[in-house]
């Protein structure tokens, strides 16, 4: 069967056995959502590729220890969140400096407004507790469903929903025009 049509656990098994392209397919399948989650979590596009790459490398390193339970995506995001939290806590890297240095931004007025909105949202996300930020970023940037989020965070689905609704309201308060 073509690799693209195989489930995650089968791909992990084949990657473990050394089947060519199996791990590549997992990377292709999940790289964009990992990049989006990492970028939004940190408020910086510049660091996202590094974090996503480190996540895949860490997962690759632990392939033999992965237990196939149909939750590879949740497992992957759990590793990514750990990377994000470490980066978030790290005092060694000035994210603000990085944001100022990103080239993918222009001086166009429209973009300045858009950028300001994005920054406001970034500030608001930073104002959330880690628990609330985890849920909202996984849901909207990673596009994970409640079950995947629950597996990622090892909490009940009801808790995921409650945190999501609380996070949204908190965000609304934080970005509300003053």
């Amino acid at each position, binding site marked *: 069967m073509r690799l693209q049509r195989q489930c995650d656990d089968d791909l992990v098994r084949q990657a473990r056995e050394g089947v060519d392209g199996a791990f590549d397919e997992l990377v292709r399948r999940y790289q964009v959502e990992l990049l989006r989650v990492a970028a*939004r979590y940190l408020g910086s596009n510049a660091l996202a590729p590094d974090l*996503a790459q480190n996540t895949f490398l860490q997962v690759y390193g632990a392939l033999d220890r992965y237990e196939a339970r149909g939750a590879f995506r949740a497992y992957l995001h759990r590793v990514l969140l750990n990377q994000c939290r470490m980066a978030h806590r790290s005092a*060694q890297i000035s994210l603000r400096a990085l944001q100022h*240095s990103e080239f993918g931004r222009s001086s*166009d007025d429209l973009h300045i407004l858009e950028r300001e909105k994005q920054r406001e949202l970034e500030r608001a996300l930073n104002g959330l507790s880690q628990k609330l930020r985890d849920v909202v970023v996984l849901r909207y940037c990673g596009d994970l469903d409640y079950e995947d989020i629950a597996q990622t965070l090892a909490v009940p689905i009801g808790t995921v929903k409650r945190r999501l609704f609380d996070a949204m309201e908190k965000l609304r308060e934080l970005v509300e025009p003053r």
Partner: protein
Amino acid sequence: MKTIRWGKWRPRLLAAYLEGEVGTSEAAAAERLLAESSDAREELEQLRGIRAALSNSGREFADVDLLPSIKARIRDGAVVRVGRSEGFLERLWRRPAAAVFAAGLATAAVCLGLAFVPRGHATDEEFRAKSASLAPNPARWAGVQAYRVAAQVWFHGYLRAPDGPAPQPTALGEALGPDDGLLFSYTNLGSAPLANLMIFAVDSSGEVHWFHPAYEREGTDPSSISIQKGAAQVPLAELIQDKFPAGPLTIHALFSHRALHVLEVEGWLKRDPRANLVELVPGSVDQILTTRVEP
């Protein structure tokens, strides 16, 4: 029937309603609320806007491919698969002091190293940076990020079009248009960061194009640019415009402790276009990026 009271549950009700996560009675309560209260309608619109902004973020990653860099790092032995028979916890138990120390080092390295790990958009070649020094390995801490500015966005020499969307430089990938511009930023971290940088390219005919420093007049011999130590993603403001012939283009980012001169480097390359610059400049890092200039 469960009755939803507004009070402190109102915000959660609206967020749940937006997500479609309400039962019949809650939906009815939310709709009543929205019909009666302009504040509630405004709140719902704000929530909708936030959700849209979050969902729409990160579209620029659609074309990013991390696979080449991941494969390169696996090939280079940057990661070793840990077998089930001896997991991390087992090793920790067996040699607690050493393992805790190693874990601390690894954590510190990850925290410090987030900004220098090679970009995901680059080709495999980008990660063949070499270093003459073994420890600390400066190649892990120094590197450049290259960006391409598509030619069609040029307008009277400015980086914007009169009516169209503002240009968005994108990570340099496998191809470069003949009139595209180039931008660079650099990262220079680690315990012994380097002091100087040269960025230049060798085109398909073997000609050397100088980006940083600029080399515009014969009879001059500019030297490396000084770079900030302990800094990540520092932009080099100058936009590079050059005419490259079609074919492969090899970009070198040569980090060094001492300032190098353009003529000295050109001399090495003239003698041997494949010269190992790291061997010629002890302690240096030569990061190599390859791309292809389209006809």
